[in-house]
């Protein structure tokens, strides 16, 4: 790890100011992606702006027809939230599948989606539920937020404050874990909220999280695994590495979508 200056602001405003003054500074949320690359000397931010003392960034709240989750809410706290388990267990299961207990007790929703790792779980949930990402500057729809591998619509100095998920009557996540890392080799989030049907996929696409519109169309008739029986997606645009071919990933998208649908209807 290289030297850096360490800042611990207590308000979002201070944090934004520090980021503005340190153009290559980095926000520290849970640190489970940032710290390993710093330790390996692959990243060398001159300043770290730690968000852990900023008030009001944590918690899971039911606000009318949405669930609002503070950006600094730990994965374990989301997974164990009774409020969330009552209204939308499908969303609660997403952070429960991340990493190991150590990661879940430190990692945060804000850090996860700001990093937009192409194999991360939360982006699938955000896109699969049509969440709204609320920053210190504006509200961004999930459909506009995830712009590619490790890239988002966030601008310089923009800080995620919370994420608002509309409560869907039916929602479920199915994940096929990467054998080594435990990230999603492929993860599929499905939801139905009135006429809004979403199928979002993480892990598989070489450009990050994406929606499967062909499945969504087919599910309009009936939100059930049967509706997409036999349907596939093309392997072009899928990731390829020693762990899985593009064909296998494309195949898993269809399998996991069916399984997620069965789970959502259970």
């Amino acid at each position: 790890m290289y030297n850096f200056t360490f800042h611990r602001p207590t308000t979002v405003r201070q944090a934004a100011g520090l980021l503005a003054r340190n153009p290559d500074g980095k926000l520290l949320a849970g640190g489970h992606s940032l710290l390993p690359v710093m330790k390996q000397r692959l990243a060398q931010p001159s300043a770290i702006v730690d968000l852990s003392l900023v008030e009001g960034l944590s918690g899971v709240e039911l606000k009318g027809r949405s669930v609002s989750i503070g950006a600094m809410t730990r994965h374990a706290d989301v997974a164990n939230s009774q409020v969330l388990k009552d209204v939308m267990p499908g969303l609660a299961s997403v952070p429960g599948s991340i990493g190991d207990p150590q990661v879940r007790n430190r990692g945060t929703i804000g850090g996860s989606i700001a990093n937009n790792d192409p194999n991360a779980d939360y982006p699938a949930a955000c896109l699969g539920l049509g969440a709204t990402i609320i920053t210190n500057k504006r509200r961004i729809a999930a459909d506009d937020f995830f712009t590619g591998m490790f890239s988002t619509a966030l601008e310089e100095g923009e800080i995620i404050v919370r994420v608002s998920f509309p409560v869907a009557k039916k929602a479920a996540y199915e994940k096929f874990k990467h054998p080594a890392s435990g990230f999603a080799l492929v993860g599929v989030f499905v939801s139905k909220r009135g006429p809004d049907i979403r199928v979002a996929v993480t892990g598989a696409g070489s450009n990050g999280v994406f929606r499967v519109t062909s499945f969504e169309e087919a599910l309009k008739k009936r939100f059930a695994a049967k509706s997409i029986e036999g349907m596939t997606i093309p392997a072009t645009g899928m990731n390829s590495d020693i762990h899985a071919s593009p064909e296998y990933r494309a195949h898993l998208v269809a399998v996991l979508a069916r399984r997620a649908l069965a789970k959502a209807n259970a």
Partner: protein
Amino acid sequence: MSATGIGAPVRRKEDFRFITGQGQYTDDVTRPGETRAVFVRSPHAHANIKSIDVSAAKTMPGVIDVLTGAQLATDKIGNLICGWMIHSKDGSPMKMAAHPALAATKVNCVGDAVAVVIAETVAQGKDAAEKVKVDYEVLPAVVDPAKAQAKDAPQIHPDIANNTIYQWHLGEKKDVDAAFAAAKHVTKLDIVNNRLVPNAMEPRAALADYDAGTDNLTLWNTSQNPHVARLVISAFIGMAPEHKLRVIAPDVGGGFGSKIFIYPEEVVCLWASRKVKRPVKWTSDRSEAFLTDAHGRDHVTHAELALDANGKILALRAKTIANLGAYMSTFSSSVPTYLYATLLSGQYNIPSIYCEVDAVYTNTAPVDAYRGAGRPEATFVVERLVEVAARQMGIDPADLRRRNFITAFPHQTPVIMAYDGGDYNASLKKAMEMADVKGFAKRKRDAARNGKLRGLGYSTYIEACGIAPSQAVGSLGAGVGLWESAEVRVNPTGSVEVLTGSHAHGQGHETTFAQLVSERLGIPIENVSIVHGDTDKVQFGMGTYGSRSGAVGMSAIVKALDKIEIKAKKVAAFMLEAAEGDIEFKDGKFTVAGTDKSAAFGDVALNAYIAHKFTGAELEPGLKETSFYDPTNFTFPAGCHICELDVDIETGKVDIVNWTAVDDFGTIINPMIVEGQVHGGIAQGVGQALMEGAYYDANGQLVTGSMMDYTMPRAHDLPSFHVGLTETKSPSNPLGMKGCGEAGAIASPAAVINAITDAIGTENIAMPATASAVWTALQKLQAPKAA
């Protein structure tokens, strides 16, 4: 059986300090004025070093010195060596390339060290290491053993043509070819035994301390055999005379073979400590461990089995290319030869066997012994061949095995080994009962209803352990003897220290060795301490590997205890005023036969030291005895593992649903520890079969260089194992022990692959059989969907 004696499941004495964080590992040892070594490593798999400029690095804060391979050569520090001579079939000796601890002119794998920074802190060392300028001329690399001998393959070492270290063979080719010509059935298989990264929990570490006042060097390091390390570093590398070098291997957190070897880093730390006149410590991080710990396996094999019409095996032949990596590690040459081909008879009566092994250099990390070392590779070849042959011939796989089991002992195989005992039918029968093989067909139908393809796979394995009779291994090329030593020191108060040449790094010797002493001397187990791992305390010993600590190490203790008993009886005879021949020793008490006169063990010990009851002319005072035990044969643990698993038709994911292991380890000292060894071995074998695989890309970069890409088995990947035992005592050592440390890793890969191929109906599938690989195989078969 007493509560703490032989056969008792005594809780491990060492665990208190381990699970309360009070173990003392090499990195926990600190010396005043300690500095840290940070290595500058090659990012290229194959390159000439045109120049190294350390001037900028030397001016960095906290830097004490920056040393290179050129200085190492100037100081006449010798190369690392491989200590087992193998001769090619044409009689020529193996071609061992120079392996300097710091590369001076050429690097041959990613991670090859080219310089070392000695700094006040690791962080300062890393900062300075980045300032070392190395000008490389990058060369093409070869990583695949099957391609290393090609005419157009890059030559890695000068004067070693075709990157070929040796072309060795064993057995009678003519007999085998004749048997194949006459065979009714021939089964052929192409097998890759995948390369593994050991990943002991504690990474390697070394701390060297030079004492300028005495000119003595002390090395703390993560070694499975500190005396051998001292011998090699002294006699071959020339670091210091043996009596001026002390090697201490304190608590060591797992080895699995990877800590047997002498590595560049410990040599460099010793050399650097003498140069900078301060202690020098290096602790590997996990990334360095992936790149520089000796890897395991990495064989490419074509194997064939000849059978008659009744499924009787007539002959076996195999051609293996073994990847030894960029340099020959300490015992690398022996692994794919005498630890491999000598076990190709398995549990079977095979009249003739012929095996050819080409060992090659590649631009990858060195490969050496890893849990099982050659024997898992042999078992995999034999047990895959037998399974496939049975299926091809329409014979039940268990039945084909039974038809060929060796049932009369001793049995001389055509590949050197003389099996001294065993009962292979017994372990197969017991395993089949425990695994409820009879109910398998119904379970398979039930699984199919849930979209799962269920399979069952056997592995009836054998291994040669208790390594090894010194004269025998010497005749095969070993540079050392493989006996073991023990010194039993009885203190005046009757407590006992055992100094053993074995080394514990997870095996529980402090418990099992003490159980032996407790039983034999009739004293509480708390009164026994096991001392190991320090060349200044313990007489020369050979260390721990090859499942040898029980069969060889404990045999040495038995021999020393025999001498203790003889001496103690002499003391007791004086105390009890009886003839020595009338003294009996039982349950910690010396009695005079036919009388009520007795003396407790502790009283005898005290009298041995106060020496008031006898004169110096009659008896030497003291009660301390040493033994060097050389085994008369290898031991032959064997058994049967049965794996039952489900394959998810849609995803290819394999779930092991049932695992049965029935092993014959001979006499068991502590069944709880043995069961733990079996569990760990199975986990590693399942890891090899389903998950683990070290992949280098064509440029020689290690793609699986971290836990993010290299899959280690986790608890949730494994079911609860059903472990059973059969027992035939080894006739080759006084306790009848056979060894249990490697069995699980040797048996299990074949059981898994036999079960997967049974489930999906294919003949072969490569390891690791990941979900992706199984799904791909299913696509090729266009397997019908389950009913």
